[in-house]
Protein backbone atom coordinates (compact mmCIF):
# COMPACT_ATOMS: atom_id res chain seq x y z
CA UNK A 1 0.00 0.00 0.00
CA UNK A 2 1.07 3.55 -0.59
CA UNK A 3 0.02 6.69 1.09
CA UNK A 4 -0.40 9.51 -1.37
CA UNK A 5 -0.24 12.92 0.19
CA UNK A 6 -1.04 15.94 -1.95
CA UNK A 7 -0.77 19.61 -1.02
CA UNK A 8 -3.16 21.47 -3.34
CA UNK A 9 -4.94 24.77 -3.79
CA UNK A 10 -8.12 25.02 -1.70
CA UNK A 11 -10.24 25.78 -4.72
CA UNK A 12 -9.16 22.58 -6.53
CA UNK A 13 -10.38 20.20 -3.86
CA UNK A 14 -13.64 19.40 -5.60
CA UNK A 15 -11.88 18.51 -8.84
CA UNK A 16 -9.39 16.28 -7.06
CA UNK A 17 -12.19 14.56 -5.21
CA UNK A 18 -14.02 14.03 -8.46
CA UNK A 19 -11.08 12.52 -10.31
CA UNK A 20 -10.29 10.20 -7.41
CA UNK A 21 -13.93 9.21 -7.27
CA UNK A 22 -13.88 8.28 -10.92
CA UNK A 23 -10.86 6.11 -10.35
CA UNK A 24 -12.72 4.36 -7.59
CA UNK A 25 -10.40 5.34 -4.76
CA UNK A 26 -12.05 4.10 -1.62
CA UNK A 27 -11.45 6.92 0.80
CA UNK A 28 -9.55 10.05 1.56
CA UNK A 29 -8.79 12.39 4.39
CA UNK A 30 -8.53 16.15 4.01
CA UNK A 31 -6.74 18.67 6.24
CA UNK A 32 -6.54 22.45 6.18
CA UNK A 33 -2.93 23.54 6.12
CA UNK A 34 -0.84 26.56 5.24
CA UNK A 35 2.42 26.44 3.40
CA UNK A 36 5.08 28.11 1.40
CA UNK A 37 7.29 27.03 -1.47
CA UNK A 38 8.01 28.94 -4.65
CA UNK A 39 4.92 30.96 -3.91
CA UNK A 40 6.05 33.26 -1.16
CA UNK A 41 3.17 35.09 0.43
CA UNK A 42 2.16 38.68 0.03
CA UNK A 43 1.74 41.99 1.75
CA UNK A 44 -1.35 43.72 3.05
CA UNK A 45 -1.67 47.37 4.01
CA UNK A 46 -3.70 48.20 7.06
CA UNK A 47 -4.10 51.60 8.63
CA UNK A 48 -0.89 52.69 6.95
CA UNK A 49 1.11 49.72 8.26
CA UNK A 50 2.03 46.75 6.10
CA UNK A 51 1.64 43.12 7.08
CA UNK A 52 3.57 40.28 5.44
CA UNK A 53 1.68 37.07 5.12
CA UNK A 54 4.23 34.34 4.56
CA UNK A 55 2.13 31.19 4.63
CA UNK A 56 -0.69 30.58 2.20
CA UNK A 57 -3.72 28.42 2.73
CA UNK A 58 -3.53 25.00 1.13
CA UNK A 59 -5.37 21.73 1.43
CA UNK A 60 -3.71 18.42 2.21
CA UNK A 61 -5.40 15.36 0.71
CA UNK A 62 -4.27 11.96 1.95
CA UNK A 63 -5.32 8.66 0.54
CA UNK A 64 -3.94 5.20 1.18
CA UNK A 65 -4.24 3.08 -1.95
CA UNK A 66 -3.23 -0.41 -3.02
CA UNK A 67 0.16 -0.50 -4.70
CA UNK A 68 -1.50 -1.33 -7.99
CA UNK A 69 -3.36 1.89 -8.49
CA UNK A 70 -0.95 4.34 -6.92
CA UNK A 71 0.34 5.61 -10.26
CA UNK A 72 -3.16 6.23 -11.53
CA UNK A 73 -4.14 7.90 -8.30
CA UNK A 74 -1.23 10.29 -8.56
CA UNK A 75 -2.19 11.14 -12.11
CA UNK A 76 -5.77 11.70 -11.08
CA UNK A 77 -4.71 14.09 -8.35
CA UNK A 78 -2.30 15.97 -10.57
CA UNK A 79 -4.92 16.37 -13.26
CA UNK A 80 -7.48 17.62 -10.77
CA UNK A 81 -5.12 20.03 -9.02
CA UNK A 82 -3.37 21.51 -12.02
CA UNK A 83 -3.76 25.17 -12.96
CA UNK A 84 -0.26 25.88 -14.25
CA UNK A 85 0.31 28.80 -11.90
CA UNK A 86 2.94 28.86 -9.19
CA UNK A 87 1.46 27.39 -6.02
CA UNK A 88 -0.20 24.31 -7.49
CA UNK A 89 1.50 22.16 -4.89
CA UNK A 90 3.13 18.76 -4.57
CA UNK A 91 2.35 15.09 -4.28
CA UNK A 92 4.44 12.93 -1.96
CA UNK A 93 4.29 9.13 -1.78
CA UNK A 94 5.14 7.04 1.30
CA UNK A 95 5.15 3.36 2.07
CA UNK A 96 2.47 2.05 4.40
CA UNK A 97 3.30 -0.95 6.55
CA UNK A 98 -0.14 -1.86 7.72
CA UNK A 99 -3.76 -0.74 7.49
CA UNK A 100 -6.67 -1.67 9.74
CA UNK A 101 -10.37 -0.93 9.32
CA UNK A 102 -11.62 -0.16 12.81
CA UNK A 103 -15.19 -1.25 12.23
CA UNK A 104 -14.37 -4.74 11.00
CA UNK A 105 -10.86 -5.35 12.23
CA UNK A 106 -9.82 -6.30 8.66
CA UNK A 107 -6.20 -5.60 7.83
CA UNK A 108 -4.08 -5.18 4.74
CA UNK A 109 -4.72 -3.96 1.22
CA UNK A 110 -8.31 -5.13 1.29
CA UNK A 111 -9.21 -2.33 3.62
CA UNK A 112 -8.33 0.28 1.04
CA UNK A 113 -9.69 -1.38 -2.06
CA UNK A 114 -12.56 0.18 -3.88
CA UNK A 115 -16.00 -0.84 -2.77
CA UNK A 116 -19.47 0.31 -3.37
CA UNK A 117 -20.31 3.13 -0.98
CA UNK A 118 -22.90 2.44 1.67
CA UNK A 119 -25.03 5.06 0.01
CA UNK A 120 -25.45 8.74 0.20
CA UNK A 121 -27.75 10.11 2.76
CA UNK A 122 -26.10 9.15 6.02
Amino acid at each position, binding site marked *: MKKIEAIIRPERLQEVQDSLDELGVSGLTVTDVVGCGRQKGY*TEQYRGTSANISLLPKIKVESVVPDGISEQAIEAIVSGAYTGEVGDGRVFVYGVEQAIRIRTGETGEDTVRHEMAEGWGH
Partner: protein
Amino acid sequence: MQGMEPTLNDALSRIDTLWVVVAGVLVFFMQAGFLLLEVGFSRMKNAGTVVAKVIANLSIAALCYWAVGFALAFGGTGWFAGTEGTFLGTIEQGAFPAMEFSTAAVPAKFFFQLAFCAVSLAIVWGTTLERIKFGAYLIYAVVFSSLIYPVISHWIFGGGWLQASFGMQDFAGSTVIHLIGATGALAALLLLGPRQGKFGKDGTPNVIPGHSMPLMGLGVVILFVGWFGFNAGSTLSVADGRFAEVAIVTVIGAAGGVLGAMAMSYSLTRTFDIGMTGNGVIAGLVGITAPSGYVEYWAAVPIGVVAGVLVVRSIIAIERLVDDPIGALSAHGVAGVWGTLACGLFTAPRLAEYNAIGEGGLFYTGSFEQLGVQALGVTAAFLSVFALSLAVFYLIKSTYGLRVGVDDERRGLDIVEHGMWGYPEQFMPVPGSEYHPPNTPGARAGALALPLTARAQEG
Protein backbone atom coordinates in the same frame (compact mmCIF):
# COMPACT_ATOMS: atom_id res chain seq x y z
CA MET B 1 -58.93 65.68 12.23
CA GLN B 2 -60.24 66.36 15.66
CA GLY B 3 -63.42 67.97 16.76
CA MET B 4 -62.46 69.84 19.88
CA GLU B 5 -59.54 72.02 20.83
CA PRO B 6 -57.19 70.06 23.06
CA THR B 7 -57.03 71.11 26.70
CA LEU B 8 -54.29 71.14 29.29
CA ASN B 9 -55.52 67.74 30.45
CA ASP B 10 -55.12 66.43 26.93
CA ALA B 11 -51.58 67.72 26.92
CA LEU B 12 -50.82 66.02 30.24
CA SER B 13 -52.33 62.80 29.01
CA ARG B 14 -50.35 62.96 25.79
CA ILE B 15 -47.13 63.31 27.75
CA ASP B 16 -47.95 60.24 29.80
CA THR B 17 -48.95 58.35 26.68
CA LEU B 18 -45.70 59.28 25.00
CA TRP B 19 -43.64 58.08 27.94
CA VAL B 20 -45.54 54.82 28.19
CA VAL B 21 -45.05 54.09 24.49
CA VAL B 22 -41.36 54.96 24.61
CA ALA B 23 -40.92 52.83 27.71
CA GLY B 24 -42.78 50.03 25.95
CA VAL B 25 -40.37 50.24 23.03
CA LEU B 26 -37.46 49.95 25.47
CA VAL B 27 -39.04 46.86 27.01
CA PHE B 28 -39.58 45.33 23.58
CA PHE B 29 -35.91 45.95 22.92
CA MET B 30 -35.11 43.66 25.85
CA GLN B 31 -35.96 40.77 23.52
CA ALA B 32 -32.68 41.51 21.78
CA GLY B 33 -30.99 41.27 25.16
CA PHE B 34 -32.48 37.88 25.93
CA LEU B 35 -31.64 36.66 22.46
CA LEU B 36 -28.00 37.60 22.89
CA LEU B 37 -27.79 36.28 26.42
CA GLU B 38 -29.04 32.88 25.32
CA VAL B 39 -26.98 32.85 22.14
CA GLY B 40 -23.88 33.77 24.10
CA PHE B 41 -24.44 31.05 26.69
CA SER B 42 -25.06 28.33 24.06
CA ARG B 43 -22.52 26.31 22.16
CA MET B 44 -22.07 27.23 18.51
CA LYS B 45 -24.15 24.32 17.28
CA ASN B 46 -27.19 25.61 19.18
CA ALA B 47 -26.88 29.34 18.61
CA GLY B 48 -29.22 29.75 15.67
CA THR B 49 -32.27 28.14 17.19
CA VAL B 50 -32.43 30.91 19.78
CA VAL B 51 -33.20 33.40 17.04
CA ALA B 52 -36.17 31.46 15.73
CA LYS B 53 -37.34 30.86 19.28
CA VAL B 54 -37.27 34.48 20.38
CA ILE B 55 -39.09 35.66 17.28
CA ALA B 56 -41.72 32.93 17.45
CA ASN B 57 -42.36 33.47 21.14
CA LEU B 58 -42.75 37.19 20.76
CA SER B 59 -45.24 36.64 17.96
CA ILE B 60 -47.30 34.15 19.89
CA ALA B 61 -47.29 36.37 22.96
CA ALA B 62 -48.48 39.33 20.89
CA LEU B 63 -51.46 37.50 19.48
CA CYS B 64 -52.49 35.70 22.67
CA TYR B 65 -52.08 38.68 24.96
CA TRP B 66 -54.08 40.81 22.56
CA ALA B 67 -56.80 38.20 22.24
CA VAL B 68 -57.33 37.31 25.90
CA GLY B 69 -54.29 37.97 28.07
CA PHE B 70 -54.74 41.68 28.59
CA ALA B 71 -58.41 41.24 29.43
CA LEU B 72 -57.62 38.60 32.03
CA ALA B 73 -54.87 40.70 33.52
CA PHE B 74 -56.40 44.15 33.66
CA GLY B 75 -60.01 44.05 32.49
CA GLY B 76 -61.76 44.70 35.81
CA THR B 77 -61.14 44.12 39.49
CA GLY B 78 -62.25 40.54 39.98
CA TRP B 79 -60.20 38.88 42.73
CA PHE B 80 -59.05 36.13 40.39
CA ALA B 81 -58.97 37.60 36.90
CA GLY B 82 -60.33 40.38 34.71
CA THR B 83 -62.83 39.96 31.92
CA GLU B 84 -63.17 43.16 29.89
CA GLY B 85 -61.25 44.07 26.79
CA THR B 86 -60.55 40.92 24.83
CA PHE B 87 -59.00 41.86 21.47
CA LEU B 88 -58.59 45.32 22.99
CA GLY B 89 -62.23 45.84 22.19
CA THR B 90 -62.54 48.88 24.40
CA ILE B 91 -60.19 51.73 25.16
CA GLU B 92 -62.19 53.26 28.00
CA GLN B 93 -59.92 54.06 30.95
CA GLY B 94 -62.59 52.74 33.29
CA ALA B 95 -62.43 49.28 31.80
CA PHE B 96 -58.92 48.84 33.22
CA PRO B 97 -59.27 50.20 36.71
CA ALA B 98 -55.90 49.10 38.08
CA MET B 99 -54.17 51.44 35.65
CA GLU B 100 -56.63 54.28 35.90
CA PHE B 101 -54.25 56.32 38.05
CA SER B 102 -52.34 57.09 34.86
CA THR B 103 -53.80 59.36 32.21
CA ALA B 104 -51.94 57.59 29.41
CA ALA B 105 -54.15 56.32 26.60
CA VAL B 106 -55.25 52.71 26.97
CA PRO B 107 -53.54 51.49 23.78
CA ALA B 108 -50.23 52.75 25.17
CA LYS B 109 -50.84 50.84 28.38
CA PHE B 110 -51.67 47.71 26.40
CA PHE B 111 -48.50 48.08 24.36
CA PHE B 112 -46.44 48.39 27.52
CA GLN B 113 -48.06 45.43 29.27
CA LEU B 114 -47.70 43.25 26.20
CA ALA B 115 -43.99 43.92 26.22
CA PHE B 116 -43.91 42.80 29.87
CA CYS B 117 -45.67 39.56 29.08
CA ALA B 118 -43.13 38.85 26.34
CA VAL B 119 -40.26 39.47 28.75
CA SER B 120 -41.65 37.04 31.29
CA LEU B 121 -42.05 34.41 28.58
CA ALA B 122 -38.49 34.97 27.38
CA ILE B 123 -37.20 34.28 30.89
CA VAL B 124 -38.78 30.84 30.93
CA TRP B 125 -36.43 29.42 28.30
CA GLY B 126 -33.10 30.19 29.91
CA THR B 127 -32.93 26.80 31.61
CA THR B 128 -33.95 24.79 28.59
CA LEU B 129 -31.21 25.66 26.13
CA GLU B 130 -29.52 23.12 23.87
CA ARG B 131 -31.93 20.19 24.31
CA ILE B 132 -35.59 21.21 24.18
CA LYS B 133 -37.76 20.47 21.14
CA PHE B 134 -38.73 23.56 19.20
CA GLY B 135 -42.43 22.76 19.23
CA ALA B 136 -42.46 22.77 23.03
CA TYR B 137 -41.71 26.47 22.93
CA LEU B 138 -44.70 27.12 20.78
CA ILE B 139 -47.20 25.15 22.83
CA TYR B 140 -46.17 26.52 26.20
CA ALA B 141 -46.00 30.06 24.82
CA VAL B 142 -49.68 29.91 23.96
CA VAL B 143 -50.71 28.75 27.43
CA PHE B 144 -48.33 31.09 29.21
CA SER B 145 -49.34 34.27 27.43
CA SER B 146 -53.07 33.55 27.30
CA LEU B 147 -53.47 32.18 30.78
CA ILE B 148 -50.65 31.67 33.25
CA TYR B 149 -49.04 35.08 33.05
CA PRO B 150 -52.26 37.09 32.73
CA VAL B 151 -53.97 35.50 35.71
CA ILE B 152 -51.05 35.64 38.11
CA SER B 153 -50.13 39.14 37.04
CA HIS B 154 -53.73 40.17 37.65
CA TRP B 155 -53.36 39.19 41.29
CA ILE B 156 -50.44 41.56 41.82
CA PHE B 157 -50.60 44.19 39.07
CA GLY B 158 -54.17 44.17 37.91
CA GLY B 159 -56.13 44.68 41.11
CA GLY B 160 -56.54 41.01 42.07
CA TRP B 161 -56.50 39.56 45.57
CA LEU B 162 -52.84 39.96 46.45
CA GLN B 163 -52.80 43.62 45.47
CA ALA B 164 -56.28 44.69 46.50
CA SER B 165 -56.78 42.69 49.68
CA PHE B 166 -53.22 42.42 50.95
CA GLY B 167 -51.42 45.40 49.49
CA MET B 168 -48.58 43.37 48.03
CA GLN B 169 -45.89 45.66 46.61
CA ASP B 170 -44.19 44.79 43.35
CA PHE B 171 -43.50 47.98 41.48
CA ALA B 172 -42.27 46.62 38.17
CA GLY B 173 -42.40 42.88 38.58
CA SER B 174 -39.65 41.11 40.55
CA THR B 175 -42.35 38.58 41.17
CA VAL B 176 -44.80 39.21 38.37
CA ILE B 177 -42.29 39.10 35.55
CA HIS B 178 -39.12 37.53 36.86
CA LEU B 179 -40.22 35.00 39.41
CA ILE B 180 -43.09 33.86 37.19
CA GLY B 181 -40.69 33.37 34.31
CA ALA B 182 -38.12 31.60 36.45
CA THR B 183 -40.75 29.33 37.93
CA GLY B 184 -41.83 28.21 34.47
CA ALA B 185 -38.14 27.67 33.79
CA LEU B 186 -37.80 25.44 36.84
CA ALA B 187 -40.76 23.30 35.84
CA ALA B 188 -39.34 22.86 32.34
CA LEU B 189 -35.91 22.03 33.69
CA LEU B 190 -37.11 19.37 36.07
CA LEU B 191 -38.84 17.52 33.27
CA LEU B 192 -36.03 18.02 30.77
CA GLY B 193 -33.00 16.93 32.73
CA PRO B 194 -29.44 18.06 32.13
CA ARG B 195 -27.64 18.33 28.81
CA GLN B 196 -25.60 15.32 27.74
CA GLY B 197 -22.20 15.47 29.33
CA LYS B 198 -23.12 18.09 31.90
CA PHE B 199 -22.58 15.66 34.75
CA GLY B 200 -19.76 13.10 34.83
CA LYS B 201 -20.34 9.48 35.74
CA ASP B 202 -19.69 10.36 39.36
CA GLY B 203 -22.23 13.16 39.24
CA THR B 204 -19.76 16.03 39.31
CA PRO B 205 -20.67 18.81 36.93
CA ASN B 206 -18.59 19.49 33.83
CA VAL B 207 -17.92 22.90 32.37
CA ILE B 208 -19.94 23.63 29.23
CA PRO B 209 -19.20 27.29 28.65
CA GLY B 210 -21.24 29.35 26.23
CA HIS B 211 -19.57 30.24 22.98
CA SER B 212 -19.53 34.03 23.06
CA MET B 213 -19.08 36.28 26.03
CA PRO B 214 -19.07 39.38 23.78
CA LEU B 215 -22.59 38.62 22.57
CA MET B 216 -23.63 37.77 26.13
CA GLY B 217 -22.21 41.08 27.29
CA LEU B 218 -23.96 43.04 24.60
CA GLY B 219 -27.17 41.34 25.64
CA VAL B 220 -26.64 42.36 29.23
CA VAL B 221 -26.06 45.99 28.33
CA ILE B 222 -29.18 45.98 26.16
CA LEU B 223 -31.18 44.50 29.02
CA PHE B 224 -29.79 47.18 31.30
CA VAL B 225 -30.92 49.90 28.92
CA GLY B 226 -34.28 48.26 28.39
CA TRP B 227 -34.75 48.09 32.13
CA PHE B 228 -35.05 51.86 32.27
CA GLY B 229 -38.27 51.41 30.30
CA PHE B 230 -39.18 48.47 32.48
CA ASN B 231 -38.87 50.08 35.89
CA ALA B 232 -39.23 53.78 35.19
CA GLY B 233 -42.00 53.03 32.71
CA SER B 234 -43.97 51.24 35.39
CA THR B 235 -44.93 54.65 36.72
CA LEU B 236 -47.10 54.82 33.57
CA SER B 237 -46.78 58.56 34.08
CA VAL B 238 -44.25 61.36 34.18
CA ALA B 239 -45.90 63.16 37.08
CA ASP B 240 -43.56 64.61 39.70
CA GLY B 241 -40.47 63.34 37.96
CA ARG B 242 -40.94 60.06 39.83
CA PHE B 243 -39.98 58.10 36.75
CA ALA B 244 -36.55 59.73 36.70
CA GLU B 245 -36.08 58.83 40.35
CA VAL B 246 -37.05 55.26 39.61
CA ALA B 247 -34.47 55.20 36.83
CA ILE B 248 -31.79 56.33 39.27
CA VAL B 249 -32.79 53.73 41.84
CA THR B 250 -32.52 51.18 39.05
CA VAL B 251 -28.97 52.17 38.09
CA ILE B 252 -27.85 52.09 41.69
CA GLY B 253 -29.39 48.68 42.24
CA ALA B 254 -27.71 47.29 39.14
CA ALA B 255 -24.38 48.76 40.19
CA GLY B 256 -24.75 47.13 43.59
CA GLY B 257 -25.54 43.82 41.92
CA VAL B 258 -22.40 43.99 39.81
CA LEU B 259 -20.12 44.84 42.69
CA GLY B 260 -21.70 42.20 44.91
CA ALA B 261 -21.34 39.53 42.24
CA MET B 262 -17.79 40.46 41.32
CA ALA B 263 -16.66 40.51 44.91
CA MET B 264 -18.29 37.16 45.58
CA SER B 265 -16.94 35.65 42.37
CA TYR B 266 -13.46 36.86 43.19
CA SER B 267 -13.56 35.67 46.74
CA LEU B 268 -14.72 32.20 45.71
CA THR B 269 -12.68 31.59 42.57
CA ARG B 270 -9.96 34.26 42.46
CA THR B 271 -11.17 35.49 39.10
CA PHE B 272 -13.76 37.98 37.92
CA ASP B 273 -15.89 35.50 36.02
CA ILE B 274 -17.36 37.25 32.99
CA GLY B 275 -20.64 35.40 33.02
CA MET B 276 -21.02 36.05 36.74
CA THR B 277 -20.49 39.74 36.13
CA GLY B 278 -23.30 39.62 33.62
CA ASN B 279 -25.47 37.66 36.03
CA GLY B 280 -24.67 40.30 38.64
CA VAL B 281 -26.16 43.04 36.50
CA ILE B 282 -29.28 41.00 35.87
CA ALA B 283 -29.64 40.03 39.52
CA GLY B 284 -29.20 43.61 40.67
CA LEU B 285 -31.83 44.73 38.19
CA VAL B 286 -34.25 41.95 39.06
CA GLY B 287 -33.74 42.61 42.74
CA ILE B 288 -34.45 46.32 42.46
CA THR B 289 -37.46 45.82 40.18
CA ALA B 290 -40.09 45.34 42.86
CA PRO B 291 -38.70 48.01 45.19
CA SER B 292 -37.79 50.53 42.49
CA GLY B 293 -40.88 52.67 43.07
CA TYR B 294 -40.96 52.16 46.83
CA VAL B 295 -37.46 52.83 48.13
CA GLU B 296 -35.03 55.68 48.61
CA TYR B 297 -31.77 55.81 46.67
CA TRP B 298 -29.62 54.49 49.52
CA ALA B 299 -31.72 51.36 49.88
CA ALA B 300 -30.87 50.37 46.32
CA VAL B 301 -27.28 49.77 47.40
CA PRO B 302 -27.92 46.95 49.87
CA ILE B 303 -30.72 45.53 47.74
CA GLY B 304 -28.40 45.35 44.73
CA VAL B 305 -25.38 44.05 46.60
CA VAL B 306 -27.32 41.28 48.27
CA ALA B 307 -28.83 40.30 44.91
CA GLY B 308 -25.35 40.13 43.42
CA VAL B 309 -23.97 38.03 46.23
CA LEU B 310 -26.96 35.73 46.15
CA VAL B 311 -26.81 35.13 42.42
CA VAL B 312 -23.22 33.90 42.52
CA ARG B 313 -23.73 31.64 45.50
CA SER B 314 -26.94 30.35 44.06
CA ILE B 315 -25.50 29.58 40.63
CA ILE B 316 -22.64 27.65 42.15
CA ALA B 317 -24.98 25.72 44.41
CA ILE B 318 -27.54 24.99 41.69
CA GLU B 319 -24.79 23.94 39.27
CA ARG B 320 -24.23 20.82 41.36
CA LEU B 321 -27.88 19.77 41.20
CA VAL B 322 -29.45 20.70 37.90
CA ASP B 323 -28.32 22.10 34.56
CA ASP B 324 -29.34 25.73 34.12
CA PRO B 325 -27.06 26.94 31.32
CA ILE B 326 -27.83 30.61 31.70
CA GLY B 327 -28.34 30.89 35.44
CA ALA B 328 -31.99 31.89 35.04
CA LEU B 329 -33.14 30.21 38.24
CA SER B 330 -30.69 32.30 40.20
CA ALA B 331 -30.76 35.59 38.33
CA HIS B 332 -34.53 35.78 37.87
CA GLY B 333 -35.82 33.38 40.51
CA VAL B 334 -33.67 33.85 43.58
CA ALA B 335 -33.14 37.54 42.89
CA GLY B 336 -36.82 37.96 42.12
CA VAL B 337 -37.76 36.52 45.50
CA TRP B 338 -35.19 38.68 47.21
CA GLY B 339 -36.39 41.81 45.45
CA THR B 340 -39.99 41.18 46.40
CA LEU B 341 -39.11 40.52 50.02
CA ALA B 342 -36.86 43.59 50.04
CA CYS B 343 -39.96 45.75 49.79
CA GLY B 344 -41.00 44.36 53.13
CA LEU B 345 -37.72 45.60 54.53
CA PHE B 346 -36.94 48.83 52.71
CA THR B 347 -40.18 50.39 51.45
CA ALA B 348 -40.30 54.02 52.52
CA PRO B 349 -43.64 54.87 54.10
CA ARG B 350 -43.90 58.06 52.04
CA LEU B 351 -43.62 56.04 48.83
CA ALA B 352 -46.06 53.36 49.92
CA GLU B 353 -48.45 56.20 50.48
CA TYR B 354 -47.57 57.85 47.16
CA ASN B 355 -48.34 54.62 45.32
CA ALA B 356 -51.28 53.94 47.62
CA ILE B 357 -50.29 50.29 48.01
CA GLY B 358 -49.17 48.61 51.23
CA GLU B 359 -47.12 49.98 54.10
CA GLY B 360 -43.58 50.95 54.95
CA GLY B 361 -41.01 48.17 55.42
CA LEU B 362 -39.53 46.62 58.53
CA PHE B 363 -36.60 49.04 58.74
CA TYR B 364 -38.96 52.01 58.92
CA THR B 365 -41.94 50.65 60.78
CA GLY B 366 -40.45 47.86 62.86
CA SER B 367 -43.39 45.76 61.74
CA PHE B 368 -43.13 42.48 59.89
CA GLU B 369 -46.52 42.98 58.30
CA GLN B 370 -45.47 44.10 54.83
CA LEU B 371 -42.74 41.50 54.80
CA GLY B 372 -45.35 38.87 55.55
CA VAL B 373 -47.51 40.09 52.72
CA GLN B 374 -44.57 39.96 50.36
CA ALA B 375 -43.73 36.42 51.44
CA LEU B 376 -47.32 35.40 50.93
CA GLY B 377 -47.31 36.89 47.45
CA VAL B 378 -44.10 35.17 46.47
CA THR B 379 -45.37 31.84 47.73
CA ALA B 380 -48.73 32.13 46.03
CA ALA B 381 -47.22 33.13 42.72
CA PHE B 382 -44.53 30.48 42.85
CA LEU B 383 -46.85 27.63 43.73
CA SER B 384 -49.50 28.56 41.20
CA VAL B 385 -47.12 29.02 38.32
CA PHE B 386 -45.14 25.94 39.23
CA ALA B 387 -48.18 23.71 39.36
CA LEU B 388 -49.63 25.04 36.12
CA SER B 389 -46.33 24.92 34.26
CA LEU B 390 -45.45 21.49 35.46
CA ALA B 391 -48.81 20.28 34.24
CA VAL B 392 -48.36 21.87 30.83
CA PHE B 393 -44.82 20.62 30.36
CA TYR B 394 -45.84 17.19 31.57
CA LEU B 395 -48.58 17.08 28.97
CA ILE B 396 -46.17 18.20 26.29
CA LYS B 397 -43.67 15.58 27.39
CA SER B 398 -46.16 12.77 27.31
CA THR B 399 -47.59 13.67 23.92
CA TYR B 400 -45.35 15.66 21.60
CA GLY B 401 -42.17 15.13 23.61
CA LEU B 402 -40.06 17.71 25.39
CA ARG B 403 -36.54 16.81 24.43
CA VAL B 404 -34.81 16.04 21.14
CA GLY B 405 -33.26 12.60 20.67
CA VAL B 406 -29.81 11.74 21.96
CA ASP B 407 -28.18 11.90 18.55
CA ASP B 408 -30.00 15.05 17.61
CA GLU B 409 -28.82 16.74 20.78
CA ARG B 410 -25.27 15.78 19.82
CA ARG B 411 -25.64 17.15 16.34
CA GLY B 412 -27.13 20.36 17.69
CA LEU B 413 -30.53 21.95 17.51
CA ASP B 414 -29.65 24.26 14.63
CA ILE B 415 -29.14 21.59 12.04
CA VAL B 416 -31.70 19.22 13.48
CA GLU B 417 -34.62 21.57 13.99
CA HIS B 418 -33.83 24.26 11.43
CA GLY B 419 -31.96 22.49 8.66
CA MET B 420 -28.91 24.71 8.83
CA TRP B 421 -26.36 25.76 11.39
CA GLY B 422 -26.38 29.19 12.90
CA TYR B 423 -22.72 29.48 11.89
CA PRO B 424 -22.53 27.40 8.71
CA GLU B 425 -18.90 28.17 7.90
CA GLN B 426 -17.88 26.63 11.20
CA PHE B 427 -19.49 23.33 10.35
CA MET B 428 -19.73 22.71 6.63
CA PRO B 429 -17.85 23.60 3.46
CA VAL B 430 -19.72 26.65 2.19
CA PRO B 431 -19.12 27.25 -1.52
CA GLY B 432 -16.59 30.00 -2.00
CA SER B 433 -15.76 30.24 1.64
CA GLU B 434 -12.42 28.53 1.30
CA TYR B 435 -9.75 31.15 1.47
CA HIS B 436 -8.27 32.57 -1.72
CA PRO B 437 -4.95 34.36 -1.61
CA PRO B 438 -4.14 36.94 -4.27
CA ASN B 439 -2.75 35.51 -7.45
CA THR B 440 -0.78 38.11 -9.33
CA PRO B 441 2.62 38.89 -7.87
CA GLY B 442 2.89 42.43 -6.70
CA ALA B 443 -0.65 43.27 -7.67
CA ARG B 444 -1.72 44.71 -4.38
CA ALA B 445 1.53 45.58 -2.81
CA GLY B 446 2.06 48.69 -4.91
CA ALA B 447 4.97 50.75 -3.76
CA LEU B 448 5.73 48.11 -1.19
CA ALA B 449 6.37 45.36 -3.68
CA LEU B 450 9.90 46.41 -4.41
CA PRO B 451 11.65 46.08 -1.09
CA LEU B 452 9.71 42.94 -0.35
CA THR B 453 10.56 41.26 -3.59
CA ALA B 454 14.11 42.07 -2.78
CA ARG B 455 13.74 40.51 0.63
CA ALA B 456 12.17 37.40 -0.81
CA GLN B 457 15.01 37.02 -3.25
CA GLU B 458 17.55 37.15 -0.49
CA GLY B 459 15.66 34.69 1.74
